């Protein structure tokens, strides 16, 4: 199922080992999806179908869960994952302008990845660094008091 390259096959094997080791298949959908996203980086259609077959639940149910929780993503993340905090503090201090600048520079919408796979963009709610608002992150690295004109140099750091 869904195997086209050896690397993919290894990932499916790993996921299958994880599922087979579960004491029961019932009520384990979210845990399995969590693991699957850890292995694949995201949850493409083929992986969801694989999970449905293995857990013997309808594919629609798997998709229902994946589409409900914002944690799960069906799109591959970029090498650099850029997150802009849109929590209250960041929002009132102009996070929206930062996000807008990133949108323009990367030519993608939040939730998307650049065609070259280098950057993905998303907004999130409060990273707990309100004193530094507005905040954006590249991977785990936090940038504080960001203004739109800082975006270029932050992106330039990503090589």
């Amino acid at each position, binding site marked *: 199922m869904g195997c086209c390259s050896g690397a993919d096959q290894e990932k499916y094997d790993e996921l299958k080992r994880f599922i087979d080791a579960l004491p029961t298949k019932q009520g384990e959908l979210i845990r399995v999806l969590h693991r699957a996203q850890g292995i694949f980086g995201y949850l493409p259609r083929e992986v969801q179908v694989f999970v449905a077959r293995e857990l013997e639940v309808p594919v*629609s149910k798997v998709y229902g869960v994946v589409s409900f929780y914002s944690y799960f993503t069906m799109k591959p993340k970029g090498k650099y994952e850029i997150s802009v905090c849109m929590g209250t503090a960041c929002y009132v201090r102009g996070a929206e302008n930062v996000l807008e600048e990133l949108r323009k520079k990367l030519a993608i919408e939040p939730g998307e990845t650049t065609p070259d796979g280098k950057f993905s963009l998303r907004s999130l709610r409060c990273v707990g660094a309100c004193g530094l608002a507005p905040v954006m992150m590249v991977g785990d690295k936090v940038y504080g008091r960001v203004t739109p004109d800082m975006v270029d140099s932050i992106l330039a750091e990503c090589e």
Partner: protein
Amino acid sequence: MDMINLIIDGQPVQVEKGSTILDAAKKLGIEIPTLCHLHMHEIGLNNQPASCRVCVVEVEKRRNLAPACATPVAEGMVVHTNTPKVLEERRTVLELMLSDHPKDCLTCAKSGECDLQKVSEKMGIRKIRVTGTSQSSYPMDTSVSIVRDMNKCIMCRRCETVCNQVQTVGALSGVNRGFEAVVSTSFQVPLNESVCTYCGQCVQVCPVGALTANASATDRLMEDLANPDKIVVVNTAPAVRAALGEEFGYPAGTSVTGKMVAALRKIGFDYVFDTDFAADLTIMEEATELAERLQKYIKGEPVAMPLMTSCCPAWVNFIETQYPEFLDLPSSAKSPQQMFGAVAKTYFAEKLGVQREQLVVVSVMPCIAKKYEAQREEFAADQNPDVDYSISTHELAGLIKQFNFDLKNLAEDDFDDPLGESTGAGVIFGKTGGVMEAALRTAYEWLTGETLKKVEFEEIRSTSSGIRKAAVQIGGLTVNVAVASGLGNARKIMEEIKAGNPDHLHAVEIMACPGGCVNGGGQPYHHGDFGVIKKRQAALCGEDAEKKLRKSHENPFIQKLYEDYMGQPGHGKAHELLHTTYAAKERV
């Protein structure tokens, strides 16, 4: 049994522990409006999301209003179902719902049958105070059988419940969240790429116009009826006659066969035939196959067991997608609809001396999966389909109304020969257990050479949805049969077979709709009342009992068809015209 005492609108009532306020009110004859709630215990459907809040009531000593459909009764509870506070809340809830609902009621396929429309009317909604962002951007999904207009969805989730709980098909699930929340297929693919079987049970339970049957064939049919160069032939399935009357003010369970024939003739069909004839034909082929498989089985030769019926197109879709490794089990006999089409476009066309393209074959079915079946590529010759249009009972009722015929005042009429004659065995095809009983009537006489005196096989007669099993004695042979209706029950049987067929079943009848075709997705809406379905079943049994001929092989026109045209059942021309193949389908 623990009983609970409570007071509703000043009236004391005692109900079983675990009942809801709604149940208790019903016992008192107090009607509380509902919208999302749907409970049909006969088919194992309990949709109780309490999401619409239309059924809210006031409960003394409770801070907020309670949804009657999901609030269990408690000892000493005092409930008020119609206080000003309750009514205001219901109106507000409806206004909010309507603020996010299209206002095209005049042209909506559900108009007049819509629960949202009814309850809004009842609550006197005349203006909507709420405006703002509304409506999902979900694209219209038009499949050959079902049309999904998710802009009209009110998220009651009845469709999801019937698709998953009752039918175990799993085509639909709630997806996304907030304004984007919608009941959808996997990955929001169109229905024809999903595991949907087109059984249409979702259409039956949808309270609004979000899920409706695709009725687009009617327009093309009208053109053909108006075209003098076309010969338009119609045939009506057994379950249609048992339900059509409901659309014209007859009580449920009134058989309107003669009046239906009269209406079809007045509409302008050139020949009015009966699918029951084709049902008799189906039995000739299926009973032959059963007898052949049984003989091999007795001799110990390898043979696929059990033989499963293949009349139901939603069941065929189900096994093709869910159990593709068992496609050797269903009988290769075509369904009555497709046998009719095949015979009409060959035998009957030749009799008339016309080309098949000149003949337009229309079937009236209780089923919307039949629309899909009619356009399967297996059922065409030189790209000309055996059945041109398959319309539902509901659509036929609409057509009769458009023509302004009052069914009640039409004089009864008879089907035409030669494809209009049928036996009682053909009639009961429309209810659960009917196909098996019809097959046994014929198989018994063929295998024993004796006359079957009592034609009713009570042990497999059932009115409800579920599984029935019986060991039937045919001469010295014990034949283990099972009858299942509802695809959830079909799944149970398939899992048994997968586990090695421990009951040694030889023959299994499956109907996708709980209770059989009388509960098809194309029938008049039952509005959650399974009693209606039972009455329709009784109407078919009544018609069977009144028939002089009750065994398919005794139908003189069937005998003549084999003599003149097809030879022996199951072989040669009969096999070529009346049998088909199945193919595994990969769907999500």
